[in-house]
């Protein structure tokens, strides 16, 4: 037990016992607490300015690494952008060289199918979603309307032979063309590869490597399998009935015989460059009652509205045909 402490009182000239009241004690405790806080703060400031906590160290390292890598990626990205610009120019030049046409605009190229916001103009209104959805639906309907807008005769025929007719009318793309990059030249006035003048191109050209499968676009009977060296080269003609015939030209080889019945999607031959053709491609024609029609109107079976719009756009380009 510590010895009792006294204090000299100069007024009474006596030694008084030092007594600590509860108030003084509390005050002192509080002072200690504040003091400790201040000290803690001072320590902390000193410590923090010299050392980092492990957590801080990890974070610092993280930020450093992230910054370094970001700068690297950023620098590389600007390099890549230059390279990409170059590549796009090359691409455009190649397109000009090979197809003799202005390249497909980059919005089409970058956007891809469905990528471009085709309804951007409609955004920003209160009922945007509704409007867009409606416009979207309208687009789809527009395509479907095609079948319905056919002539009355067709409708009557359709009523009678509906199922058979729907299976027979050529209505798919004759080669696998899901990415829609194969379309080289559409129906209409196109630059002839040798004459270098505008000639009417009665079909649609699809670029494809030698030996690519060519499909029957509707049910029908093979009426011609001819290896004429002239014009169409090795070609197949299918009679679909209902006045429709489809022609597949410049084939490398056949997969059908005359008189054979084929179903939509059957492989009838393989892509080549026979006859008047400057490159491997498929020349595809549709004839309705002996008159050529634009095949682009006949792909309603396997394309969605965006793809359909895109193929129409590509096919409309006035480039060079390949035959």
């Amino acid at each position, binding site marked *: 037990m510590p010895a009792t402490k006294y204090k000299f009182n100069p007024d009474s000239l006596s*030694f008084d016992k030092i007594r600590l009241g509860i108030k003084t004690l509390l005050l002192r405790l509080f002072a200690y607490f504040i003091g400790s806080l201040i000290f803690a703060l001072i320590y902390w400031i000193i410590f923090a300015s010299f050392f980092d906590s492990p957590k801080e160290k990890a974070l*610092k390292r993280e930020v450093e690494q992230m910054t370094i890598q970001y700068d690297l990626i950023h620098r590389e990205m600007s390099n*890549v952008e230059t390279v990409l610009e170059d590549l796009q120019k090359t691409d455009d030049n190649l397109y000009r060289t090979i197809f003799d046409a202005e390249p497909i605009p980059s919005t089409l190229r970058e956007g891809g199918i469905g990528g471009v916001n085709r309804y951007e103009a409609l955004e920003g209104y209160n009922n945007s979603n509704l409007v867009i959805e409606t416009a979207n639906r309208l687009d789809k309907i527009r395509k479907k309307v095609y079948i319905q807008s056919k002539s009355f005769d067709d409708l009557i025929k359709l009523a009678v032979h509906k199922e058979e007719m729907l299976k027979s009318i050529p209505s798919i793309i004759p080669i696998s063309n899901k990415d829609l990059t194969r379309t080289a030249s559409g129906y209409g006035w196109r630059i002839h590869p040798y004459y270098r003048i505008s000639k009417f191109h009665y079909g649609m050209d699809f670029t494809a490597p030698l030996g690519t499968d060519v499909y029957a676009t509707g049910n029908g009977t093979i009426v011609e399998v001819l290896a004429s060296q002239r014009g169409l080269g090795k070609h197949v003609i299918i009679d679909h009935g209902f006045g429709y015939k489809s022609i597949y030209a410049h084939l490398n080889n056949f997969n059908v015989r005359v008189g054979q019945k084929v179903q939509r999607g059957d492989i009838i031959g393989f892509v080549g460059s026979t006859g008047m053709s400057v490159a491997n491609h498929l020349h595809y024609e549709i004839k309705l009652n002996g008159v050529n029609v634009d095949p682009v109107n006949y792909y309603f079976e396997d394309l969605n509205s965006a793809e359909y719009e895109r193929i129409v756009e590509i096919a409309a380009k006035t480039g060079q045909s390949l035959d």
Partner: protein
Amino acid sequence: MLRNRKYVLDLSDLQYKQVRLPWKKKFLHILLWFAGSLVVATVYGTIIENMFGSPKEKLLSQQVENMKLQYTLIGRELDNSLATLKSLRLSDDKRYRPVLDMDSVPESFRKAGFGGIDRYSDLTGYLNSDLLIAYKSKIDEIKSMATVQKESFKTVAEKSLEWKKEMDHFPGISPVSVKFRLGDTFRWRTIHPVLGTSRMHNGQDFEVPYGTDVYATGDGSVIESGYNSGGFGNCIVIDHGYGLQTVYGHLSDIKVVKGQNVKRGDLIGISGSSGLSSGPHLHYQIEQFGSHKNPVNFFNNDVSSQEYNEMIQAFASKSQQR
């Protein structure tokens, strides 16, 4: 000062003695006090850090979040680049290469120098390692794709020029305006109009009046020009390269000399009836690697004379530009 002095009652001699701490003890006191304050400070620090995190930490975390945002932003650019590269690749593989009869670049080559687990080992062990590696590998993928694409386009470009050249050299048009009737065709002739014997007709006759312009059907060089004793009379032979030669016979006049380079659509001669000929006509024949080909397979027959003239004029203006 007197007031603050503390005294202790010494029981042995009942005297009040001033409490004097030796400096050693004083020092010890201060040390103890200091140690105590350290302990208390640590306790405070631990509690605060655990509950709130230090301001510095907060700042750093904020910075990490900022970086993440930056990454997201650049990620969008990366994705755009990837999309561009993919579309470039599509037009390469699906548009150009099929036309030029080239095989597409094999997947293994496209992915060359890519992959490998240890590539990004220096990026492991961070809080956001996954993020860093994802972005790093994406930019690497883009870089390698771009490199491959560049190489690929280079070969395609070379091939396309080659292809264009070959197309220019191909005898792809009719040597005279096709308004004229096609005469005797490529066939086994039972009676030769002059000789009267049976003989192969190796070419295509065009029934054109005396003095009709005859044009080169493709780019090439004249390897023969002059009178041919074999029956073609005044005759021109053009070598188009790629194993193709064209012969223009029975001319009345020759406008080119041996060794001269000609372009498609160049006026090379005037038709006539020289040599073994029963009347004015142009004899046109095509040889491919030494064997005779039917010329009608080499040109479109449905070009009107107006279109033909347009074409010749276009070729002429193009020649002048060169």
